[in-house]
């Protein structure tokens, strides 16, 4: 009886370790697979070429610049709106049914599948506001998609500002907006920026809503205005993966390396901001 229990105790440990190792192995194999396939194809020519029907002439330039446009405009729209909404909910909102309605709404929005945001964008921005399948329509759709993430992260940062800071300022006769602008916002800014960058890196990787907005994926020009049609890196990668010719799969892998590289650098910036902030508090 007793040795049996001892064996079982070890067995559970081993089973759980195997489960953990398997899930981590999934990640490692996934990355190794993409790097092994794509690295030989990743060169300056790939970064600096437009899409082509010939695999060795094709590149990611149009998609890379499209992604930069989308993320830039999305940041421009979502940052002020998200921070303002978070400030309202933390600093101004009365405790009533309408505030809790807004809260429930934000929680629900975060769970809506991203492709549904694509349908929203098609109906609202592309058709009703007649923006067409433009960069602007894409960025506005992406803004609605990442707003809940920015609001939640900003609220957490705002909530972590000590109450004493606010009370000190109120005691000196500051108005609510003065306290919010001069005291709360600067202290919460590093946390807000970290959350925003992480939300924007989600925007860079999203393919589904961008496919419904951009549709046509063969864009052989570099967009120069917010009203141009566009493609983004995840769409371009999807396009190459779906191509039955094997060489295009290698291009997809090279595209994945570029995409992951961009994400990695954005996340590093977020971590750096968090690290500097933590040091200053100490």
């Amino acid at each position, binding site marked *: 009886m007793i040795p049996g229990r001892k064996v079982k105790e070890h067995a559970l440990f081993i089973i759980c370790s195997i489960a953990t190792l398997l899930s981590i192995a999934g990640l490692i194999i996934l990355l190794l697979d993409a790097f092994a396939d794509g690295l030989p194809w990743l060169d300056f020519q790939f970064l600096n070429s437009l899409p082509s029907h010939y695999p060795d002439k094709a590149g990611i330039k149009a998609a890379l610049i499209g992604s930069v446009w989308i993320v830039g405009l999305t940041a421009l729209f979502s940052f002020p709106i998200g921070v303002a909404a978070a400030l309202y909910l933390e600093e101004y909102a009365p405790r009533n049914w309408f505030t809790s309605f807004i809260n429930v709404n*934000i929680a629900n929005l975060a769970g809506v599948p991203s492709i*549904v*945001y694509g349908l929203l964008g098609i109906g609202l921005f592309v058709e009703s506001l007649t923006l067409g399948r433009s960069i602007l329509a894409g960025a506005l759709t992406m803004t609605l998609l990442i707003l809940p993430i920015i609001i939640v992260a900003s609220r957490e940062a705002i909530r972590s500002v000590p109450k004493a800071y606010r009370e000190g300022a109120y005691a000196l006769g500051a108005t609510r907006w003065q306290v919010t602008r001069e005291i709360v916002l600067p202290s919460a800014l590093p946390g807000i920026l970290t959350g925003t960058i992480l939300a924007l890196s989600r925007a860079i990787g999203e393919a589904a809503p961008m496919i419904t907005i951009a549709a046509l994926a063969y864009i052989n020009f570099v967009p120069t205005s917010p009203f141009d049609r566009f493609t983004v890196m995840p769409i371009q*990668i999807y396009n190459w*993966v*779906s191509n039955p010719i094997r060489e295009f799969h290698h291009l997809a892998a090279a595209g994945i390396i570029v*995409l992951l590289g961009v994400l990695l650098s954005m996340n590093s910036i977020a971590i750096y901001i968090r690290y500097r902030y933590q040091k200053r508090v100490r």
Partner: protein
Amino acid sequence: MESCTNVPRAQEWIIEKLLFLCALISVFTMFAILAMLLFGAISFFQEVSIIEFFTGTKWTPLFKPQHFGILPLLWGTLLVTIIALGVAVPLGLGSAILLSEYAPEQVRKIIKPVLEIMVGIPTVVYGYFALTFVTPILQVVFPETSVFNALSAGIVMGIMITPMVSSLSEDAMLAVPQSLREAAYGLGARKHEVALRVVLPSAFSGVVASIILAMSRAIGETMIVSIAAGSTPKLTLNPLEGIQTMTAYITQISLGEAPFGSLEYRTIFSVGLTLFLIVFAVNLIGHWMARRYWRQY
């Protein structure tokens, strides 16, 4: 003094209203989603009977004779989700038990960030992995596997949602009071008995909530199934065949396979509405379970 005039007070009022409007955008977004989906779906149901839509067993909007029965798409989504949970539940629970009951702090500090990285990887990358790595392996093991199949997409989706199951379950297990564990140890229980008979049952509704929320993510996931699961909607029990999910169908039509504004095109709104309602209901159950759990302790 300046503050005695009405100018700052007016400014305060305007700013509060502006901030309020920004917060209101979230409410507006939810209404806009519902309005767009309902608007598209209603104009679709004026031409196709709603009964055919929910009970028909054939989905062939793109060729004659047209059939608009959503069941094959629903089944495709369900099949892939079941396979994904089959992978994610054992892996996720195993890691959660390891992290909360066995692993020392240093090991946790390494494993947790790795699992977090997995959540941040774009789903198109997982799709690539399914099609170019997992499917060829499946074809070696089961030679009858088709290039696009439900199993490969399901397995990779399972890998993708495993961190969701493990991190939420681990939170739930860590919240189980230490006194419960100590009481069990005091009665002579061993570690596996504490983990499986004390911690897991106490954290049960939290663990179930984590699985339900991961499930909702799997139902709404689009790119993996668009790339690896195929575009042939059918009611099949064989996971080695190609199927189509609701999300993959929306992608296929969006890519320009049907003329803008046509009846075929408007199907994506009725499918989108169905998807939205299902995910909404699943999320509601998940959040309800999670709340019940956190109130408990």
